């Protein structure tokens, strides 16, 4: 899974498409009996571990599901507050899955708009005239590549730092966008992309890029 996600941002900075291709590796499911020895707290509309790190459950991990049912923010799938539910001994033994909290779609929207602004700052900071915006962002775990078309649409790919051929992939995604999104007469410009053909072709393009890039990574 060397290519983690693809984001498409329209001219105004709004996220119009998002695709995640990674499997969260650090997820742990355990059965607990009363009283719970992990201390939980509310944080950012989620319930996270604040103390009691053990067995793969780390501080900062969020509660992902209770008894197999995915949680809904601070509440269980049935709508009960999680912390209240876990204080009641009659609900035990309970099986809780902890893991690194995934970004919600609202958070992704916000991050995409923020990146849109940072992209512009990138070109303004430049000491030379006529610089492009941010084309690559690197951390120790991933590399973010961004391609802005002449019409203002940005294609952003998050991939493994060792993955090669991302530039070609960005051009390919542009082609797929111009084919399956734009040539679909029922798709309105600048709106979220909900075209199945676009999804399918994007997935196959990602698979091809991963296989081609892997000659250098050896993973």
């Amino acid at each position, binding site marked *: 899974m060397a290519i983690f996600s693809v984001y498409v941002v329209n*001219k*105004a900075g709004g996220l119009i498409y998002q695709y995640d291709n990674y499997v969260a590796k650090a997820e742990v499911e355990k059965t607990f009996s009363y009283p719970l020895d992990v201390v939980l707290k509310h944080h950012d509309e989620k319930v996270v571990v604040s103390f009691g790190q053990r067995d793969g459950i780390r501080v900062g991990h969020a509660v992902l599901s209770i008894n197999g049912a995915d949680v809904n923010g601070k509440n269980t799938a049935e709508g009960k507050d999680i912390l209240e539910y876990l204080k009641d001994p009659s609900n035990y033994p309970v099986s809780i899955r902890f893991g690194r909290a995934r970004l919600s779609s609202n958070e992704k929207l916000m991050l995409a708009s923020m990146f849109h602004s940072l*992209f*512009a700052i*990138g*070109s303004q900071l430049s000491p030379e005239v*006529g*610089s*492009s*915006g941010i084309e690559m962002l690197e951390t120790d775990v991933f590399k973010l590549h961004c391609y*802005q*078309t*002449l*019409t*203002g*649409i940005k294609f952003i790919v998050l991939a493994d730092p060792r993955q090669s051929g991302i530039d070609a992939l960005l*051009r390919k995604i*542009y*082609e797929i*966008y*111009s*084919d399956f999104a*734009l*040539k679909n007469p029922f798709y309105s*410009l600048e709106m979220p992309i909900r075209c199945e053909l676009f999804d399918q072709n994007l997935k196959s393009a990602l698979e091809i890029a991963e296989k081609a890039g892997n000659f250098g990574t050896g993973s």
Partner: protein
Amino acid sequence: MNSELFTLTYGALVTQLCKDYENDEEVNKQLDKMGYNIGVRLIEDFLARSSIGRCQDFRETADVIAKVAFKMYLGVTPSVTNWSPAGDEFSLILENNPLVDFVELPDNHSTLIYSNLLCGVLRGALEMVQMAVDVRFAQDTLRGDNVTEIRMKFIKRIEENLPAGDE
């Protein structure tokens, strides 16, 4: 794909519009609007397939339109002539226009600009790359002239919503 199907489809479209609107001016407007909607989408396909970068001036734009775009989509290469002294207006001269193969305009549609779709396409496509242009037919083989001439005039650069890094 067979170009005759394309000619037939376009012809069916224009005749249906004539029946629906019954007024040549209205049909011309509708064709321009439809062309505009095609143009805003076609530009992305053009940029994705041709990997052409931003043009530095209007002359370069004219060359790219004539030599690359028209060739890619209609299979014809018009010539670029009649530059105005200020360099903001030019003509595209088309020897043959694939849209009007086999077409004759009847007398009761003398003000109909049959290929007005092309004007809309050019206008819509250039607007998406921040150029406001005015496109009109100066000569039309269907109305008795020898060649088809499309006159393009640069109005202004669209400064709103410029992609970052393009100042």
